[in-house]
């Protein structure tokens, strides 16, 4: 889970003594914001969104005029950044920046260990820094990290400012401890600035990117609230889908990510769902959602997710696709859950009769389950084809594409 900058500053930076600028977060220019602006000679105002590269989108501004600052705050607190609505804005003191470093801690899969990444050339996107100027210190023993080790590392990479050697090494250990103890996947400070404060040089973290492990021993969703992975608020369908699995651990049917397309996916299993979605996209189908159903959910869960998936307006086709389940009952999920959803939607006049369907599935009781679904197709006038696992899983989306071109004159997207 990604944190908003103000959340990271408030709940993590303070606790682990990572120095940050003075700041105020608010959803609108309230008294606190006005007071803050009055006191500071100049301020930096930032939209609070989860998406990165805010600067390039004009969502970070430096203002010295006090009246203008309030207008800018209003604008940045409510604007959309790359399609994501700001939840507010953060106003911070403007630092007298002398240098900008890059610092992050994350897991390196190459070393299968946490890695501290540092560059004296921060401030720009890390991808844009010359790789030879980025240095990595791999943490070999995760439970004992000391500043002296970091000083050895900094000296080894030719770090130029010996005055900063001790404070920087201590700050990096604080950042590492924050990473390790909060169970983060990534803690990134870019830029970590050297600021002039009176006659002193001071290290200040001028940004905060924190990605917490969703599987942490205490789930970050408990502390910070559930949050979609799409950099936007959850849609109504996505919220409804989450409710399916709440308080009921029998299988998983509540994963649903809404997209713009017109081909609904009802896919099963992590790997199977991914390759199916992938093939559909490569074949030029515009998919309407991602989902990943598994772990033998009961019929009522399948019923609910099927109705959510099929409720999206503008659908042209549906792909029901999964491998050979080890555990998930095909008669229960497709023969009962999905079939009942179709029966009810038909009865309520909510079933689009023009949809084209392809089903590809196998697993426990699949002969019965596919037959039941076929009977449901017949009694509801649903058009489509049903396969078992003789058809390789990723040929199912290609088969759907053929049917759509033939029967509804679908024009696949030209991907290449």
């Amino acid at each position, binding site marked *: 889970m990604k944190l908003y900058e103000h959340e990271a500053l408030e709940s993590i930076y303070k606790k682990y003594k990572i120095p940050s600028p003075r700041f105020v977060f608010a959803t609108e220019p309230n008294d606190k914001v006005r007071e803050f602006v009055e006191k500071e000679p100049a301020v930096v105002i930032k939209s609070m969104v989860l998406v990165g590269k805010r600067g390039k989108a004009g969502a970070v501004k430096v203002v010295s005029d006090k009246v203008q600052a309030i207008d800018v705050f209003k604008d940045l607190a409510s604007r959309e950044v790359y399609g994501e609505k700001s939840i507010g804005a953060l106003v911070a003191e403007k630092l007298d920046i002398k240098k900008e470093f890059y610092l992050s801690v994350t*897991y390196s899969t190459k070393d299968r260990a946490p*890695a501290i990444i540092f560059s004296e050339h921060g401030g720009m996107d890390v991808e844009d820094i010359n790789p030879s100027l980025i240095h990595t210190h791999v943490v070999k023993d995760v439970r004992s990290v000391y500043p002296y080790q970091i000083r050895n590392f900094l000296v080894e990479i030719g770090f130029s400012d010996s005055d900063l050697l001790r404070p920087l090494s201590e700050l990096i250990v604080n950042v590492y401890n924050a990473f390790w103890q909060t169970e983060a996947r990534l803690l990134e400070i870019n830029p970590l600035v050297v600021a002039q404060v009176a006659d002193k040089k001071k290290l200040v973290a001028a940004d905060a990117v924190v990605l917490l492990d969703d599987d942490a021993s205490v789930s970050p969703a408990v502390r910070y609230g559930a949050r979609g992975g799409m950099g936007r608020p959850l849609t109504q369908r996505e919220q409804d889908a989450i409710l399916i699995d709440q308080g009921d651990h029998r299988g998983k049917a509540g994963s649903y990510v809404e997209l713009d397309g017109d081909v609904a996916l009802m896919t099963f299993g992590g*790997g199977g769902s991914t390759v199916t979605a*992938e093939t559909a996209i490569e074949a030029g189908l515009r998919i309407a959602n991602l989902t990943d159903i598994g772990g033998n959910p009961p019929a009522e869960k399948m019923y609910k997710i099927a109705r959510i998936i099929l409720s999206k307006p503008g659908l042209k086709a549906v792909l029901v696709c999964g491998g050979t389940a080890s555990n998930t009952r095909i008669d229960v999920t497709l023969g009962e859950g999905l079939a009942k959803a179709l029966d009810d939607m038909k009865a309520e006049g909510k079933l689009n009769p023009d949809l084209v369907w392809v089903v590809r599935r196998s697993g426990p009781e699949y002969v019965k389950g596919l037959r039941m679904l076929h009977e449901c197709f017949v009694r509801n006038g649903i058009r489509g084809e049903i396969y078992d696992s003789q058809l390789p899983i990723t040929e199912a989306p290609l088969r759907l594409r053929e049917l759509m071109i033939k029967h509804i004159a679908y024009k696949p997207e030209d991907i290449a």
Partner: protein
Amino acid sequence: MKGPVYLNEKTGVVVIGATGREASQVIRESETLYPGIVKAGVTPGKGGSTELPVPVFDTLSQSLQDPKIGNSINTALIYVPPVSVLDAVMECLDGGIKVIYVITEHVPIRDSEIIYQEKVRRGAVIVGGTSLGCFVPSVGRIGAIGGKDPSIAFKAGGLVIISKSGGLTVTTAEMFRRRGWGTYCALAIGGDIISNTTYADVLAELKDDPNVKGVVMLGEPGGSYEEQAAEMIQAGGFNKPVAAFISGRFQERMPEGVAFGHAGAIVERGMGKASDKIARLEVAGKNHPVKVAFYYHELVSAIESLGVPRDFEDSVTDHVKPLYSTIS
């Protein structure tokens, strides 16, 4: 000895968290299909229970000291909840067990890191977390892989299937089985960020095993384990045919900032993306028998074109017809 280190004729399994819903089902199924592989179960507070076809103990230590079965246990299969996995792995490592499967999903990354460092220190083999287990048709299976009727997917042959996704391991075995290739060993290594057994680890383990005729590798975005396999092959560390499919290219077409990418991608600049993994494997394929399939089902033609011999007659050759059609 028949079978690789992951599962062979000497393998004797203790299941940790044995009386849970999933674990007890797997033990019953496995004992019906391949009797004798699972020796014991451990669940604190359930010692002496007779609900399973194998004896149940309160602690691992008790099971290892049992005069009848203690000496035959050398492998552990872990089914405990995510926050208890570290404890269970340490119990097994301290008990001297050298091959451990972690089936549990959603293990905290921090715990996975501690587990990995301990595994290296002790020279053990750990597969997972998020493994579905291992299937060696000439020996049997560990875990739920293949379900109640594994014969649909698994028949003895020469392929090694290595996959982060458990479901795709079985789906892939079945796709090949229906077209004439059998499996020597299928291993679901799991997709965790800190993976205890990677593609390269498996290739290193099996590089001199004469039973291996070809490898099917199923990859996903995130991390650099696929790239490490490509580098190892390119450096001459594995010489047999490898067909690979990397899923997840579509994630690169998602809107700016969508949080699909793994943190690891930042470390290994240019690594982690599906397209980069594919490119890296294709480079290895210039001088080595490596092919990357564009569509997943093209893995079959990739294995065929790499000259891996079929193990038995084709069972499916023609265009597959639907079981049912309501569209004409």
